[in-house]
C-alpha cells in the first residue's frame, strides 16, 4: 500500500470514528444543558423590541424561530404534564414583538396560555393581553376577537367582556354571521354546555395547531358526554316515577320505551348506570375535561 493510499484509509477511518464520537459528546451536552436550553435564553433578553433592533432586518425570520421555540416549549411541557409554563408568555411576547403580523402566534399562543395546567399555562389574563396586542396590530382579523371572546367566556367567566369581544368582532368586514349570534348567546346563556360546545367547535375548525386541535376534540367529547348524561338522568328519573323503582340495566329503559337503544359515550363505550339514577362514563380518563360535578347532577 503506497503512502497516499495509507493516508486516505486512515483519514476515512478517523473521519467516521471521530464523527461518531462527536455525536455521543453532543448528546452528553444536550443532557447537561437540558431540553429547554435554547428557550431559556429569553430569561436574559431585555425585551422583544431590543431583539428586533439586533436582528438587522431579519426580524420576521427570527419571529418564526421564536414561534417554533414557543410551540416546542409548550409541547414538551404538555407531554410532561407540567404545572408551570413560565417561559411561554415571554416567548410569545418576543415572537409578536418581532413580527406583529404573525396572527397564529396570538391565536394559538393565547389558547396555550389560557387553559388550566396541565393543558395550558393557566394564565388567562396574559392570554387576553396577548390577544389585545394582536388586535391592535391586526384589527382586520375578526378571528382574533373570536379567540378573545372564547378566553373571556370559558376561562375568565367574564361574560360581559366576552359579549363585547364577539360584538366587536362581528363588526369587522368579512366576519362570519355567527359572531353576532355568539354575542347574543353570551348575554343569554352564561355558562351553559351548548355555548361551550359552540366555542370549542369554533376553535377546532379554525386552528391549524395539532395540540390545540387535540385539546378541542377532548373538550368536545367531554361536553358531549355531559349533555348525554344530563339527558339520560332525566329518562332514568322518568322511569323511576313511572315504575317506582330505579332501573338496573339500560334494557329496562329500552323496554319501557324511554330509550331507542343502549346508550354509548363519545368513546364508544356503554354508559354506566349507577344506583339511584346516577349515570357516569365507563372510562373517565377518556374525558379529561368532564366536570366532576356532573356526577352529582
Amino acid at each position: 500500500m503506497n503512502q497516499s493510499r495509507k493516508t486516505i484509509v486512515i483519514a476515512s477511518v478517523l473521519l467516521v470514528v471521530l464523527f461518531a464520537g462527536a455525536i455521543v459528546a453532543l448528546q452528553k451536552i444536550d443532557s447537561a444543558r437540558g431540553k429547554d436550553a435554547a428557550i431559556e435564553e429569553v430569561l436574559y433578553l431585555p425585551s422583544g423590541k431590543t431583539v428586533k433592533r439586533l436582528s438587522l432586518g431579519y426580524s420576521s425570520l427570527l419571529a418564526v424561530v421564536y414561534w417554533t421555540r414557543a410551540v416546542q416549549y409548550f409541547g414538551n411541557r404538555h407531554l410532561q404534564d407540567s404545572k408551570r409554563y413560565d417561559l411561554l408568555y415571554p416567548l410569545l411576547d418576543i415572537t409578536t414583538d418581532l413580527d406583529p403580523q404573525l396572527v397564529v402566534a396570538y391565536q394559538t399562543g393565547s389558547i396555550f396560555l389560557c387553559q388550566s395546567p396541565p393543558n395550558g399555562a393557566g394564565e388567562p389574563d396574559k392570554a387576553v393581553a396577548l390577544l389585545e396586542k394582536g388586535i391592535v396590530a391586526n384589527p382586520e382579523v375578526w378571528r382574533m376577537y373570536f379567540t378573545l371572546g372564547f378566553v373571556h367566556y370559558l376561562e375568565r367567566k367574564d361574560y360581559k367582556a366576552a359579549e363585547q369581544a364577539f360584538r366587536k368582532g362581528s363588526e369587522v368586514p368579512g366576519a362570519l354571521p355567527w359572531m353576532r349570534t355568539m354575542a347574543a348567546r353570551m348575554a343569554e346563556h352564561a355558562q351553559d354546555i351548548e355555548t361551550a360546545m359552540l366555542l370549542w367547535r369554533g376553535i377546532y375548525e379554525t386552528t391549524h395547531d395539532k395540540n390545540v386541535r387535540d385539546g378541542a376534540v377532548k373538550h368536545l367529547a367531554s361536553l358531549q358526554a355531559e349533555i348525554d348524561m344530563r339527558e339520560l338522568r332525566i329518562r332514568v328519573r322518568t322511569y323511576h316515577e313511572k315504575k317506582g323503582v330505579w332501573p338496573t340495566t339500560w334494557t329496562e329503559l329500552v323496554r319501557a320505551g324511554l330509550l331507542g337503544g343502549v346508550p354509548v359515550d363519545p368513546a364508544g363505550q356503554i354508559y354506566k348506570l349507577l344506583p339511584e339514577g346516577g349515570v357516569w362514563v365507563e372510562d373517565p380518563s377518556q374525558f379529561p375535561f368532564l366536570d366532576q360535578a356532573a356526577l352529582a347532577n
Partner: protein
Amino acid sequence: MTSRLSAIALNTFREAVRDRVLYNLIIFVFLLVASAPLFSQISIDVERLILVNVGLSAISLFGVIIAIFIGIGLVSKEIEKRTLYTILSRPVRRWEFIAGKYCGLMMTLLVNAALMTVGFMIAVMITSHGLKAQDMHLLVAVYFTVLEFMVVTALTLLFSSFSSPIFSAILSFSLFAIGTFSLDLRNFAASAHGITKMFALAAAYLVPNLASLNVIAQVAHDQPVGGALVLYNTLYTVLYSAAVTAGAVLIFERRNLK
C-alpha cells in the same frame, strides 16, 4: 513529522502577522478600554452587562471573521502562488500541510483572543472597580469562544481544500449561522416524524453545534457554567474539529494538483 508540522504552522502564523491581521487587536483593545468609562454614563446599573456583552461578542465575531477570511486562502493562495508545489516537493506529506495550516491559523486566533481578553478584562476592571470571583466565569466564555474558533477553522479549511475562496467563505459563514441555531434544529428533529425526522436528525448532527458554545448571556448575568458542560463541549469540539480536518485531509489527498 513534528518539526515539519510546526514549520508549516509557524509559517502560517508569520504570514498572518505579515498581513497585519493582528492590527485589529490594537483598535479593539483601544476602543474597549477607552470607552469603558462611558458605559456608566449611557446606562444605569447595566454598564457591566453592556461591556461584557459587547466585549465577548466582539472577541467571538472578530475571531470568526479572521478564521474565515484567512482560512479560505490557506490552500488556494498556496496553489495560486505555486508555493504549494515547492512545499510538497520536499518531504512534506499533504496531511501534514493541512494539519500544519490548521495549527498555524489556530495559533493566530489564540494570540488574537488572548490579547483581546487582556484588553477586555482591563475594561471590566475599570468599570467594576476591580475584579470579583464571578469574573472568572467570563474566562469560561472566552474559552468556549476559542472552541468555536477551532470548529470554524476546521470547516473553513475543509471548504478551502476543494473550492474557491468566495465559495468557501459563503459556505463557512452559512454553517456558522446555522450552527448558532443547531439546538433549535435538534429540537425540531426530536419533534418531527418519519422521513422528516431522519433528515432533520442527520442535518442536526452534521452541522456544527455552536449553540452550546455561546454562554455570553449567561456569564453576563454572573451565572456559572457547569463543569460537565465545559468537559463535554471540549470533547465535542476536539472530536468534531478533528473529524472535519480528517475530511479536509481526505479531499486534499485525492485532489489532482497537476
